[in-house]
């Protein structure tokens, strides 16, 4: 690991951020930030949060958007929430996460996940929401998220949730 890097606070993506040279090593993650993130944010599909280096180049980013899960009313009763007026549980989806390849190995990805969880927990206090969800693309990422307290929703799925009440 090389020397410490100075990173900005995590803030919503803005016009001043330099996205053209972002290289995470994952072409899809890079192309999203470069070509679609600003538009999707403007359309309200998701909110893109970034941290940048002193030159304004994006060093890492993640996207969050609302997500709901429909649950069987009978299951709600099993955990003592039988009187819920409608069988929907709301949360947030951590859709994309990327860290510049030049900064890999410094724990920035895990720190960004925790910052995403903290932001959504803060927002949930205002608008509701009980979990942060992810759908990791590989088994390796499933194990990585599990180490950050995400719970896998079964062996046949890669979908995972982090209960917001468990966020430090």
């Amino acid at each position: 690991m090389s020397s410490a890097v100075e990173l900005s606070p995590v803030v919503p993506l803005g016009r001043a951020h330099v996205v053209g040279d972002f290289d995470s090593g994952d072409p899809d993650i890079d192309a999203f930030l470069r070509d679609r993130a600003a538009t999707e944010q403007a359309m309200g599909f998701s909110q893109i949060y970034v941290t940048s280096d002193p030159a304004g180049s994006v060093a890492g980013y993640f996207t969050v958007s609302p997500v709901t899960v429909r649950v069987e009313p009978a299951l709600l009763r099993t955990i003592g929430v039988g009187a819920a007026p409608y069988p929907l549980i709301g949360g947030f989806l951590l859709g994309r996460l990327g860290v510049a390849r030049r900064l890999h190995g410094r724990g920035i990805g895990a720190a960004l996940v925790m910052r995403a969880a903290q932001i959504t927990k803060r927002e949930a206090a205002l608008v509701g929401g009980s979990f942060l969800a992810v759908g990791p693309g590989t088994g390796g990422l499933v194990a990585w998220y599990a180490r950050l307290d995400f719970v896998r929703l079964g062996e046949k799925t890669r979908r995972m949730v982090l209960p917001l009440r468990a966020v430090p």
Partner: protein
Amino acid sequence: MTSRTAAYRSLPANERQEFRLPTLLKDHLAKAAARRGQTVAEYLTVAVAERVAHDLAETAEWHLSVPEQELLLRALAARTRPSARARSAAKKADSMFGPLPQVPRRR
């Protein structure tokens, strides 16, 4: 036209899409577009943008199997404490990005 549809239409039309369709549908498409005073491309772009915006909004709902729902509910109901690794990552987030700004609350 919805705001999302308008956002799609404000973007440059820089891609081509080729597909086959029945002759009758193609004829009716041209008639329908003409009645609105639009080109076929304009008519199709609006129609597709509306459908895509609607379908993407639908994906904001996760459809889980009953066993997956049960695991979700049990995870939400459990009173677990953050693991040492999660606490460490949260401390690192504070050290890297500064403390999380709090949203002002109504008094």
